[in-house]
């Protein structure tokens, strides 16, 4: 086998409903990236204008890794739109770059293991930054944000959402239908909140914001009330 074939076999590409999917193994990221680009360069007409998702397994990727690949792909007129990963770090990086981290068909087997070993309530994604417009953060458990959620940003958790800052974007807690989920923030003014399938009416901005907690009350309505320090 010559080197070219060895390289090419590193990354598998197959068609999925939303375009193409390239699956990476745990081998060196650099080698696999080159292999993918090589494969594209060999059949430019096939890849021209393609939408590509990549499944990177356990690879821990930094912003630069993903940006470099995306730029190389974009030079070849291939659009990188999703990065599927086992690593929360990689997932977060991809989300911050505005890439999808889930494709229509949920991932089989492995994701389950992760959830099984730890109880849902115990896990939270901790973000120490302001979530800006156009950013969508999705997480299968709780989300804690130290920073603001700006207008145009979306935060979606299967569990609870806690924001140590101002919320002016969209927050959806209990996204898989958990009606016991709650949302709390230092300032919940002027945003849209959702818990399970309940949607809040538009909240008016407060003159003097106080910490608030939103949950579904006994009448089944989404309601926000000031945090009672008693």
């Amino acid at each position, binding site marked *: 086998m010559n080197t070219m074939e060895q390289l090419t076999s590193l990354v598998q590409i197959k068609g999925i409903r939303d375009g193409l999917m390239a699956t990476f193994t745990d081998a060196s990221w650099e080698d696999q990236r080159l292999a993918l680009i090589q494969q594209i360069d060999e059949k430019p007409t096939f890849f021209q204008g393609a939408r590509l998702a990549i499944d990177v397994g356990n690879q821990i990727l930094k*912003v*630069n890794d993903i940006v470099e690949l995306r*730029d190389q792909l974009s030079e070849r007129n291939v659009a990188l739109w999703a990065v599927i990963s086992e690593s929360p770090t990689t997932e977060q*990086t991809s989300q911050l*770059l*505005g890439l999808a981290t889930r494709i229509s068909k949920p991932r089989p087997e492995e994701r389950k293991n992760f959830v099984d070993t730890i109880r849902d309530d115990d896990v939270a994604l901790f973000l120490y930054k302001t979530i*800006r417009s*156009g*950013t969508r953060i999705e997480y299968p458990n709780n989300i804690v944000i130290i920073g603001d959620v700006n207008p145009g940003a979306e935060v979606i958790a299967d569990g609870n959402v806690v924001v140590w800052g101002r919320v002016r974007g969209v927050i959806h807690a209990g996204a898989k239908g958990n009606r016991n989920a709650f949302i709390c923030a230092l300032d919940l003014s002027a945003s849209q909140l959702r818990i399970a399938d309940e949607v809040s009416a538009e909240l008016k901005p407060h003159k003097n914001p106080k910490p608030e907690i939103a949950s579904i009350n006994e009448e089944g309505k989404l309601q926000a009330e000031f945090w009672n320090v008693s």
Partner: protein
Amino acid sequence: MTAQVITLTSGKGGVGKTTAVANLATALAMDGKRVVCMDGDIGLRNLDVVMGLENRIVYDIVDVIEGRCKLKQAMIRDKKLPEMYLIPAAQTRDKNAVSPSDMMRICNDLKPDFDFVIIDSPAGIERGFRNAIAPADKVLVVTNPEVSAVRDADRVVGILEAEEKGSPLLILNRLNPTLVKNNDMLSAEDVLDLLGIQLLGIVPEDENVVIGSNKGAPVVTDAKSRAGQAFRNIAKRLQGQDVPLMNLESQGGLWSAIQRLTGRK
């Protein structure tokens, strides 16, 4: 000497990026700096028009990238300021003719001979935007005090942070102090509060800006214009000088006199 590469971007179109590029470059050149402006808006070029250099274009940036001319041949010298050049965009190609690495190569070639390279980014967050920010040492986000413009600016700031470009600086363009006073416009505080980035300057609304752009004579050359003064101050700050923000309310005039009389704030 190595030039600082500064990219102006905004997300939303029409907030005054191109005007700001023309004015800042002119102000820097008036301060004796050697400046090149690059129009990053391939296919929709207009920096050349605002700078009044349209009819001098022979070669453009795509000609340089595709090897049809030398970099020097595509650089158009300004009519009045001999130390200021423009590298125009191509009007007849699309943005895929340029890649981020092309932009970095051109900037690296320019760096030894200049003090500032100023890049005008196209609107949007797609390919053209990526091209424009790739070589930047510093990114300036231009926005208007309008909810939609600020939201797009927020998106751009988020992308710049995710790409580890460092925190950008803000230019708040076309602020109307009277509207702000009457609570009819977002104030500088509202915008800064949301974006949470450092303010480089506020440019007041000024009809001379449009007149200047149409004449191909940027408003900074008008010593009396307040917007011109604001751009001159921003250029000074880019050179590391500490210039305080202008007091936009000291405008005087009949209307503010009436407001003072009637006690409205």
